[in-house]
């Protein structure tokens, strides 16, 4: 087919589109309202966390063993960013929906899709603008980190950045879901209901289904909040990052499929199926990626270094059969303290539940309930312990190797700190909100320089 027109419209530069999308996000009240709400919520959480951390630190002043259990990641960072997480879950969808919903409601979408940009480019620009809004929204939480450092608090770069990455991925996932909801819904209100149904539904999955056996356990893993937990534990999981990115890309692609009003419903459905299949395949593949880096300063996700090195030398398959119901708290302890670490430390580990449908109520009469069987190199042993201090010697015994000598030193010292955190309250309740209001006011001013050019007909 020959070109329809010699003077056809060429693809335009991305810059104007990105600028337009950024102004679109900044011009709305949603972002600024969210920021103003974030200030007291994050501030209160930070003050509470530092106060409690200070009380624990005071108790540990005379006991170094207690001090080694004081980690700023658990004591300050996770609670402070927990407040950010709650606000992002409930309010960030409104910021993201606005990026598309307003154009759809007003009919401006019919102009937008005629611009010389591909529809995926339009959605990517909106996602980029919403990501920029996330970076603005995280300012109160970042200011809390700065205050913590100012009080003399310790921050470990890797675990802090890992936590920030987790929250960024979570924010982008919420944004992508919100954009998709805005693309399929007729109004912003409906899009908000859809998005909140997903985000709040995740909480319900978390609370109601976690620890339940069988299908419920699998469904509970779909919860969005599950995506954040490894980052809060100081674990950089490659598979999780890939899966989350695939989910973000999938929802963004679905938004692109449903955005154009000129595409027939049947075509949208077919394309949606293809997108879901592709994204689902990537997510499923990513769940098989076991590579994970323990970035926590206290190495809570790993065995001691000497044991890690020794376990890496055990090449044969290790089969672990657990006689516990999934909802049994001992299973959770075993998974956290032993199984997850073994899966990361050894190349070939298979963990299976003796009965996937087993429940605590029906298993108390089973004499083997609570046992865990370890099979390595044709030899087997059983234990009821959930501590690596008992399991690792058992494994070395099965493998016929001596337990490694522990490395000297290198123990996590802990970072106790008693700070006068009340001094931070004026920042979160006064100074920061005023700065946000000033920034809001600045964003509302008309663009004077461009205006002069226009008024003078380009002769300025």
């Amino acid at each position, binding site marked *: *087919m*020959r070109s*329809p*027109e010699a*003077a*056809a*419209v060429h693809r*335009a*530069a991305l*810059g*104007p*589109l990105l*600028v*337009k999308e950024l*102004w*679109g996000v900044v*011009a*709305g009240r949603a972002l600024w309202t969210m920021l103003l709400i974030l200030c007291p919520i994050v501030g209160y959480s930070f003050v509470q966390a530092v106060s409690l951390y200070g009380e624990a630190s005071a108790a540990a002043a005379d006991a170094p063993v207690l001090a080694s259990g004081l980690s700023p990641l658990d004591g300050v960072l996770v609670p402070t960013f927990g407040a950010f997480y709650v606000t992002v879950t409930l309010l960030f969808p409104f910021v993201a929906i606005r990026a598309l919903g*307003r*154009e759809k409601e*007003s*009919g*401006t979408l*019919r*102009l937008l*899709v*005629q*611009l*010389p940009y591909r529809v995926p480019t339009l959605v990517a620009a909106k996602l980029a603008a919403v990501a920029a809004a996330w970076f603005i929204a995280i300012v109160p939480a970042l200011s809390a980190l700065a205050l913590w450092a100012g009080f003399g608090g310790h921050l470990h770069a890797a675990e802090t950045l890992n936590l920030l990455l987790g929250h960024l991925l979570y924010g982008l996932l919420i944004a992508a879901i919100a954009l998709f909801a805005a693309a399929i819904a007729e109004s912003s209100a409906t899009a908000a209901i859809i998005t909140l149904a997903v985000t709040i539904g995740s909480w319900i999955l978390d609370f109601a289904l976690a620890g339940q056996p069988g299908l419920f356990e699998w469904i509970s893993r779909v919860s969005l909040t599950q995506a954040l937990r490894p980052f809060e534990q100081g674990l950089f999981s490659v598979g999780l990052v890939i899966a989350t990115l695939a989910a973000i890309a999938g929802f963004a692609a679905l938004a692109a499929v449903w955005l*154009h*009003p*000129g*595409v*027939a*419903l049947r075509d949208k459905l077919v394309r949606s199926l293809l997108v879901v299949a592709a994204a689902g395949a990537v997510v499923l593949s990513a769940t098989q990626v076991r590579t994970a880096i323990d970035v926590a300063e206290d190495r809570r996700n790993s065995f001691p270094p000497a044991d890690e090195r020794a376990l890496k030398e055990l090449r044969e398959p290790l089969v672990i059969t657990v006689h516990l119901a999934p909802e049994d708290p001992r299973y959770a302890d075993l998974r956290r303290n032993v199984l997850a670490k073994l899966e990361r430390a050894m190349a070939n580990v298979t963990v299976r539940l003796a009965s996937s449908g087993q429940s605590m109520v029906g298993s108390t009469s089973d004499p083997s309930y609570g046992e865990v069987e370890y099979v390595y190199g044709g030899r087997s042993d059983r234990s009821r312990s959930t501590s690596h201090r008992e399991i690792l010697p058992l494994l070395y015994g099965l493998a016929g190797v001596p337990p490694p000598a522990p490395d000297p030193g290198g123990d996590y010292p802990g970072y106790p700190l008693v700070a006068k955190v009340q001094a931070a309250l004026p920042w979160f309740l006064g100074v920061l909100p005023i700065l946000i209001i000033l920034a809001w006011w600045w964003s509302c001013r*008309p*663009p*004077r320089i*461009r*205006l002069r*050019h*226009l*008024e*003078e*007909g*380009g*002769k*300025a």
Partner: protein
Amino acid sequence: MTFAVARSPVVERSPVLMQVGALTKRYRDQTALAGVSFEVHAGEVLGLIGPNGSGKTTLLEAVAGVLPADAGDILWRDAPLPVGRRRDVIFYLPDGLRPWDDQFVSRVLAFFAAVYGRSEEELGDTVRAVGLSPVLGKRVLALSKGYGRRLMLALALLTPHPLLLLDEPFDGFDLRQTREVMTLLRRVATNGRTLVLAIHQLADAERVCDRFILLAGGAVRGIGTLAELRAAAKLGTVGLEEVFLALT
């Protein structure tokens, strides 16, 4: 591929820019467009005439590719023009739209100018041509209906597309403003762009359009110049209103 449509001897000399063939659109059991066919000639101002609900907007949106049609073809200079490429040559300006209404007028104009690579001088010329200078510092939602129309017109003029589809371009203007805009649109057509205007005010259409498509109930009831339509209706020297009533 050709479509059997009436052709005006006046515009026959100018090449056919676009051919619309058997365009059909249904909403459940209601037929909004029933096999609409017509041609658009380069440089003409073609009026799409019909009462409210006759299918004018549906036709423009289906041609522009922002509404999926159930059937029909569009040729551009005798070559098929798929939906995905229509935005390369056609720009459709919807009716009653306040684009990006929370933004300042100057920012919306600057965005369109940047997207289509217009210089500041071209942007300034467009602003002056449509008389938007007094409201550049206002937000779009604060504009009156007339200025809102002017903004939309300015956006259309900033695009480089050879064919503009304008839905009710005179709605919201008073008599004097309507005449100004008509003069402006005639100048745009003289400069080589082709215009298809959906108009329900027949007097306005009669003043600005070269040819007319009479649309009623989603079907074409007549195509041609006013003289040709008079002849088809077997009427003497009467206005477009009488011709329209006679043919629909």
